[in-house]
């Protein structure tokens, strides 16, 4: 596919090569120009924290986009700096000028995926990831004992890609953390509200969440019901497309998005509740993702407006179910896609603080990503590991015995890092803690 190049009338000072972006949705020059180059975003950027260099900072990446729009080529170096971005959106939070870096990097990644020649090894790794992650049924095999996992390894594509070697430390951790991973209880299609019905909500069951943390989905449904929601979890639902969209595989992401919109529209719900931060943020972005699709633009806008994070909806409805004590010292970890991408920070903290007996501590440098970032830790294991280790050290410094967060990716990443440091603390999704408190059962039993 060839597209018309963007021409801004710039003199050809950037060399003779083809410019970085073609005219099919390049990063918007207007959004690029919103950046006033003040640098306020630098200190919260995980890659700047690691390497201290401009081209791996938000300001530097936006500047690279700008030079690209002015005609600089999409060189391997430039792509390398875009690839190194975790998409954690800490820069969106810290930018006083309201620069929409999220939209800029998404557009840039799509151009990179379409127009940049990756090495065969990199290509194989990426194809393998996207042949695996968005499909719960394929993921399920990874849950089994390693023996079963090796069966997957017999698959030529997976073997060539080296994906399993990269995943295996995490898989091993997950298996050791959750030895009881047995048959995943599917979330019931319908869970009726307890007491007065205050809302009818749809529930996304997710891919990783569903296969690796089935207890979280069950707890989510119970808490929602206890708070007066009829919970509908359509069995036919697929992946939300977050991993694809955030990695520049726009078309794949759009296909997932359309299907999900159809499923939940058919379910006729007031809100769609999501307990995985990455999925929630990408569903709230459908409005942009499908803006150019005449059949879906309006439906996507309506859909995005209905999407709520788990903690967000409960705070919005106002919690009514009585809480029982949960005696523990907890640290709350902000998942980037919850805190930065959706601006949800106070709700989960307030819900946790309202649990009698639970002390909630803050983690130093909480705004800096743990390195999980979707599939970033698989694509860029080294920086991811370093960020994970920093996060683990900061978590341990709080002295907490329980870590609460709202994203499966963060849980896996942090667990692996803690394991490496030889320390263990218990991990739980916010929903698990609330469920234990509402039901009056000890956290251990969940």
């Amino acid at each position: 596919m060839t597209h018309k190049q963007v021409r801004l009338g710039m003199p050809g000072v950037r060399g003779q090569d083809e410019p970085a972006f073609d005219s099919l949705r390049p990063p918007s020059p207007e959004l690029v120009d919103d950046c006033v180059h003040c640098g306020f975003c630098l200190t919260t950027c995980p890659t700047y924290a690691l390497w201290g260099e401009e081209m791996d900072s938000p300001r530097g990446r936006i500047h690279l986009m700008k030079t690209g729009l002015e005609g600089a080529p999409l060189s391997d170096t430039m792509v390398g700096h875009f690839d190194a971005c975790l998409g954690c959106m800490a820069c969106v939070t810290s930018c006083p000028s309201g620069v929409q870096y999220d939209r800029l990097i998404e557009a840039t990644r799509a151009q990179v995926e379409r127009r940049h020649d990756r090495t065969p090894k990199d290509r194989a790794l990426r194809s393998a990831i996207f042949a695996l992650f968005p499909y719960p049924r394929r993921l399920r095999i990874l849950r089994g004992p390693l023996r079963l996992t090796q069966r997957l390894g017999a698959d030529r594509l997976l073997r060539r890609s080296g994906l399993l070697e990269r995943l295996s430390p995490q898989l091993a951790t997950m298996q050791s953390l959750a030895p009881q991973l047995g048959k995943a209880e599917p979330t019931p299609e319908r869970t009726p509200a307890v007491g007065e019905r205050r809302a009818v909500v749809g529930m996304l069951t997710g891919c990783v969440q569903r296969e690796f943390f089935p207890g979280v989905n069950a707890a989510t449904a119970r808490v929602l019901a206890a708070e007066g929601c009829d919970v509908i979890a359509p069995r036919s639902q697929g992946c939300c497309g977050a991993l694809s969209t955030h990695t520049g595989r726009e078309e794949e992401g759009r296909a997932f998005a359309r299907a999900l919109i159809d499923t939940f529209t058919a379910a006729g719900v007031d809100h769609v509740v999501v307990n995985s931060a990455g999925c929630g943020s990408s569903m709230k972005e459908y409005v942009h993702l499908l803006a150019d699709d005449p059949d879906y633009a309006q439906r996507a806008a309506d859909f995005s407006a209905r999407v709520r994070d788990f903690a967000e909806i409960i705070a919005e409805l106002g919690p009514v179910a009585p809480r029982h004590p949960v005696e523990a010292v907890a640290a709350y970890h902000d998942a980037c896609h919850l805190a930065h991408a959706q601006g949800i920070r106070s709700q989960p903290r307030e819900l946790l603080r309202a649990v009698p007996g639970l002390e909630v501590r803050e983690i130093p440098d909480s705004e800096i990503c743990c390195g999980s970032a979707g599939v970033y830790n698989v694509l860029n294991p080294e920086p991811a590991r370093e960020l994970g280790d920093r996060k683990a050290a900061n978590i341990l410094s709080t002295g907490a015995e329980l870590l609460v967060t709202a994203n499966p990716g963060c849980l896996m990443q942090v667990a692996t890092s803690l394991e490496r440091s030889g320390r263990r603390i218990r991990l739980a999704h916010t929903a698990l803690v609330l469920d234990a408190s509402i039901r009056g059962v000890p956290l251990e039993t969940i």
Partner: protein
Amino acid sequence: MATHPGHPSVPDRSDGMMHGLDPAAEDRAQTAPAGAPSRGGTVADVLAELRGTLPDEALLTDPARLATYECDGLAAYRVTPGLVVLASTPEHVAATVRACARHAVPFVARGSGTGLSGGALPHAEGVLVVTSRLRTLHEVSAADQRAVVDPGVINLQVTKMATPEGYYFAPDPSSQQICSIGGNVAENSGGAHCLKYGFTTNHVLSLDIVTPDGDQVTLGTRAPDAPGYDLVGAFVGSEGTLGVATRATVRLVRLPQEVRTVLAGFAGTDEAGAATSAIIAAGIVPAAIEIMDALAIEAAEAAVSCGYPAGAGAVLVVELDGARHEVADEYAAVERICRQEGAFEFRMATDAAERAAIWKGRKSAFAAVGRISPDYIVQDGVVPRTALPEVLRQMTRISAEQGVRVANVFHAGDGNLHPLVLFDGSKAGETERAEAVSGMILDLCIEHGGSITGEHGVGSDKAKYMPRMFTDDDLDTMQLVRCAFDPHGIANPGKIYPTPRLCGERSGRRQGAHPLQEAGLGEVF
């Protein structure tokens, strides 16, 4: 002149400084003295010398990477550096500067690149020495009230590390969350609390520097008030023209027992200004006293929803700190004065979160102006406090006459104005008009006995205004100091001074010797 369509913040004033052209070559031609170590050297010579000495990943030569260093916080000026060195040790800095000295290649230091006067603007034929990887906090000593830090350490980080000990680093530029100590030293940066606590220069005890010859020397001592010339004082505020700071020993200040932050809403800046004067006249020295006008408030609200009093034509932020009973007395006086001068709303922050909310509006104001105007110039001028109301009135007049909106945020206590001149670069003529207004504002400051910069420095941007404020003699004398440190003129050339002085030769402008030399008081180095 090449144009950047819709560049981020300020008009393109890069005449002749764009990619492809070579301002550095001109500088070298003028400044390289007879007898310089090796003449006609290039960046390639420096690079060849550094390969092997410095790790490869510290030497950036890829065009995409170099491009990300082409500007600082003043993005209108863009020059792609010839070479970027990411130093991780003082020795890396020294090796780089030595190589530059040997080949008579200019170098420019850069910290976090937030400067607003183009001080860290690179040279196309020069080396940019970046300190952002030199970020170790070596020591925080409460007993000594000292911190020893690398130049790339972020200002706010020093305070964060000292807070548990009951101390903080007093200079607090609005950019404190990202600007580096090296940059603060070079710019003699200040912030809202400088009224009471002074600028960076009042808080630096000692500096390790790499001189423009590449020597590593220590200026000052850990103990206060070393005998001899105050070379630390000379270095602070020198904007990278006297060498590169590689370590700083800074003073820590005890956290006050009590802090009260108040926010008062007024009908306009006249009333807020009158309240400021009355507070100071009453003998109160607040830690900070800041004014924002209606446009600046609008921008801050758009950015951070700071919840300032609705309908205010100006807000006054006053922070009182010190011993509890003293603050309580001062607070009562400030409230009385504000109400007398017409404050229609008066609030006090009751906890840290509310205080942070008040400051958030103020500290994000510059960058937030991007929300209400596509482009803007951040101006920086100083006037005596008593001239504030008159200067503000004149500014309003100029703004109305020229049809250019000007938002005002300023450190009212010390008369440091930060007018934000708003324009839309994509509309014909607006850039030029904004530029003109910006210049008129500086003239206003000079006319009223003030200065062309309070804290952002002269850099590339204001060099042309220096002759409006200083005579040729003044400027030449200043350059004699510079020549003493940098005889070959390779340390950040082209900044501060409109005409580079020829160390070892007579000034291009002057016929005959400098009067100081003729009087036997000064020497040419």
